[in-house]
Each structure stands twice: as C-alpha cells, then as structure tokens.
C-alpha cells in the first residue's frame, strides 16, 4: 500500500550535557552499559544535563513547508538532526515516510582539491542519489547553479556564494519526498535566492518539508505553516506564517528586555 509522504513527530526529546568532564564519565558509563546489553534510562536528567529539545510534536504532510524559527540555541538544528537520523532521541518518536533529503549544510563531503564535476557526484550520492540518477541530472544541476565555466576547476576556486549555489542545486535535483533544510541560503545572492525559492515552492507541492531559517522574508515566501521554538520546546504553532513571525518577534523583544533591560 502506498503511503502519503510526511513527517509525524510525537513528543520527541533530546538531552545534552553542559559539563565536558561529566560528559566523558556519562559517555563511558553509557557505552559500557550498552555493550553489556543494559538499556540506558534516557528519560531522566543526570547532573549537568539539560533538554535541548523537549516534548516536541508536529506533523508535516505532503504539500506543507513548515518554517522552524527561533533564537540561537532554541533547539532547531537538534530537532532537524533528530529527524535526519544523525543521532537518536532520548524520548518520543518520529516517523518519516518517503525518500529523505537532509540539507543540514551545503556541499557536505565536498573536497576542495577535487573538480566541481567530481564533487557533484560525491555530494549527490551522500544526499541519496544513485550514480545513474546523477548522470541524468548533471547538466540540469550545472545549469541551475550557473557555474558551468568552472566545471573542471577545483572547488577551492569557487567563491562562498558559488559554493552555496552548487550545493543547493544538487539538493534541489533530488526531488525528495521529505526535505529538511537548515539555514543554507544565507550567503547566496538575491537573484539566486529567488530562483531557489521558486524551485522550493515547486518541490514542496509533492513533498513534506521543514525549513529552518533566520530570514523571515524567505520564511514568509516559502512556508505555509510555522513553528516557533524557545528553549527546546514548541512555543507557538500555526498555519498562519505572519502570526508566527509576529509571535517570534514579541518573544525576541521579551528576551532582549530581560537580558538588557528597557533602557530606562
């Protein structure tokens, strides 16, 4: 039976340790225990541990692009890493149905001294494409990135902007069912950003996507749902993106007021 692509997250949590020394002790204890078949109790915090993500639930269906916003340290990247399977949660559950592309950074696996051509193959296979698929889409990737003159040059000669163009073009060629994007359009120029926004809109008609960004202009343009995170929890969730951004701005004002006072 074919199931609809989507992401379903139910009460997911993740904890980390603030103290490096204690983290070593916990790590050694966990590894030894796990190797002996003892299931670690992940639900309780030990001394110096904190919840980086706590009891987060959300649902993203085909055709949805949910903007995940929040201040630095609010748990956005950790949540995305949990969904990408980078590390397991300490509580809750997530079910991802469909072919996943996790764009947590651009150009993952790029090697500076290898050619653009070689790097396209490396990066695209890391994202989950097969060699045959890349052969078919190679020309489209290069055309979209607009760096055709550098195809046989080492990646080291590309500027930061060109690097992002190339990385993003590869990811867009994948046509995934589930797309996780973490703040990767930041250094690209306006023209390329607009091109990417159009491409993202097209892709999300057929996929479920989570988009992390600090750029509210892009969030407003591409997202049709919003989740605001604060201190590891979901502070606000809505289909109304403008309302979510307003909430986030008021949250930021509150935090700044608490931190710096109101100037009086």
């Amino acid at each position, binding site marked *: 039976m074919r199931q609809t692509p989507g992401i379903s997250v139910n009460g997911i949590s993740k904890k980390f340790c603030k103290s490096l020394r204690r983290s070593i002790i916990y790590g050694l204890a966990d*590894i030894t225990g796990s190797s002996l078949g003892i299931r670690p109790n992940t639900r309780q915090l030990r001394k110096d541990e904190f919840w980086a993500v706590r009891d987060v639930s959300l649902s993203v269906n085909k055709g949805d692009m949910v903007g995940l916003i929040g201040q630095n340290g609010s748990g956005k990247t950790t949540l995305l890493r949990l969904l990408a399977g980078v590390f397991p949660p300490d509580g*809750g559950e997530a079910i991802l*149905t469909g072919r996943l592309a996790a764009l947590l950074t651009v150009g993952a696996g790029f090697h500076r001294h*290898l050619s653009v051509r070689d790097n396209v193959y490396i990066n695209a*296979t890391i994202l989950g*494409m097969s060699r045959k698929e890349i052969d078919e889409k190679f020309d489209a990737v290069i055309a979209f990135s607009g760096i055709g003159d550098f195809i046989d040059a080492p990646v080291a000669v590309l500027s930061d902007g060109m690097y992002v163009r190339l990385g993003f073009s590869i990811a867009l060629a994948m046509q995934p069912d589930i797309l996780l994007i973490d703040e990767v359009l930041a250094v690209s120029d306006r023209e390329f950003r607009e091109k990417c926004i159009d491409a993202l809109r097209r892709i999300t008609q057929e996929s479920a996507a989570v988009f992390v960004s600090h750029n509210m202009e892009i969030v407003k343009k591409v997202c049709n749902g919003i989740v605001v995170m604060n201190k590891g929890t979901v502070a606000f969730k809505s289909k109304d993106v403008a309302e979510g951004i307003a909430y986030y701005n008021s949250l930021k004002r509150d935090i700044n007021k608490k931190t710096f006072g109101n100037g009086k």
Partner: protein
Amino acid sequence: MAGTVQRMIITPNRCFDTGSFAGFLNAIRNQLHRRDMVYQLFKKEFFAGYAKSFIGSAWIVVSPVIGIISWVFLHRANIIRPGDVGIPYPAYILVGTLVWGLFMNITSAFMNAMANSRYLLLWTSIPHETVFSVQILLQVVHFFISFCVTIIILILFGIFPSLGILLFPVVLLPLILLAMAVGTIISVFSVISLDMRKGITALLGLLLFVTPVIYSLDAVTNVWLQKVIYLNPLTYLVCSARDILLFGRLYSAEGFFVSTGLSVAAALVSWRVYYFSGDKVIERLI
C-alpha cells in the same frame, strides 16, 4: 522517484529492539544499497590524498621503498641483529612490514574514522557505518598496490613467492578482522575521551617489537620477551601471512587457528560495542 516508499521510525534505544545480528544485516544491506556513495567517498579519499602532491600517486611505490632502505640501513649498521631468517634480510623485512603495515593501517584508519568524519556524521544522514566501509576499501586497495610493488622487488632480489601466494588473502583475513575490531573499539571510546587513543597509539608502536617482524625468534634470548612473543596473537597472524607467501607454510598452525578464533571473538565484541553505542558516540562529536 523510487516506487516503494521508505519508512524511517526514530525512537530512543531502537538498536536494542532490533538486536545486534539484525542490525549487522541491516548495515550490510544499507552499504550495498548506498554502494554508489561508498564508491564516491572511497574515490575521494584515495585521489584527494595525492591531489596536492607533485609526484602524486607515485608515493604508493616510494613509501615502501623508503621503509626498506631504513630497515636495511639499521641492519647493515648492526643496530638490528635479526638472527637467521632463512632468506636475504631485506626480503624478510619487506614482506613482514608489508603485512604488519596492513594491520597498523587498518587499526589506525578505523581508530580515527569517526572523529575524522565528524562533519559527515553530524551534517548528513548517511548510514554511520559508511565511514568504516570507506576506510576498509581504502586500506585494502592501498595494501594491494604495496603488495604488487613488494612482489616485483622480491623477484628483483631473485626470490620467487611460493605457491602459498594463492592462500595469502585467506591467511590475511583474521589479521584484517582483528585490526578492524581493535580500531572500532578505540574509535568508539576515543570520541568520548582522548586518553584511550593516546594510550593505544603508544602501545601499538611497542607491539612491533614483541612481534617477530624485523627479527627472527631465534635472535631473542630474553625468556620474558620470548613468552610475550609466544602469547601475542599477532605473532601467528603476521608471521603466518609472511611465511605462507615466502615459504608456503604457516608459522605455527596451532597458534594461527587459536589467534583466528580470538580475532573472530574480538570482531563480534567490537560490533556489539559499536552497534549499541555508536549513536551515542556521534552526538558527542558535536
């Protein structure tokens, strides 16, 4: 787009529900499924290593030659007294250090695999065991090149390998397994704390001197050292591989099979350690 829809269920301690055997089969399946990626990453590591070098891949040939020259120099200068090794000393050293190098290179590649692939592990959703698959491919290919160079040099010395050369890859298997096991366990623990990697690196350097690679056992007069060499499984694994190539026999059949058993046991333990704690290790790469 693929016809079948993949389903990924993410829960805490999922590895315990799956079990280490099923987990092993899943890992193999994943690696086969993502073989294009494994090949691309292998190619990248292999060629990128020489990309900024003027003589490039010629280093593959130059490195073992420099190694032999240094051992022969130490021998001629009477710093090393290897005892009667039965064949010209450079040839003995050449094959011994070739096999020893395979053990050391795999151990050290595995040991550093997770820490060196920090970026890939934290910023992509690749199956984590990929970093080990790439390393084993890389080391086996490097070894194969060094092996071909060695055979050519041996023939130039007038020494022709025995028919045992056909069994050489099989005799190497337990050594490879032991190297993977040791490297994996250190890799897991060293991400948590650097102490283990530093300690083991120092210890591995010492191991060469308690394995009859650069000398023959006859040259050892100290009883305690003889005992250590006798109890060291690497003695049987390394020397059997060397002897099967040069003389067509195992160093000690009994020692070889006992050491093979130990290697298999170590490999099983290392998989268990990696499988149940690998995920926890990756979050500590942050």
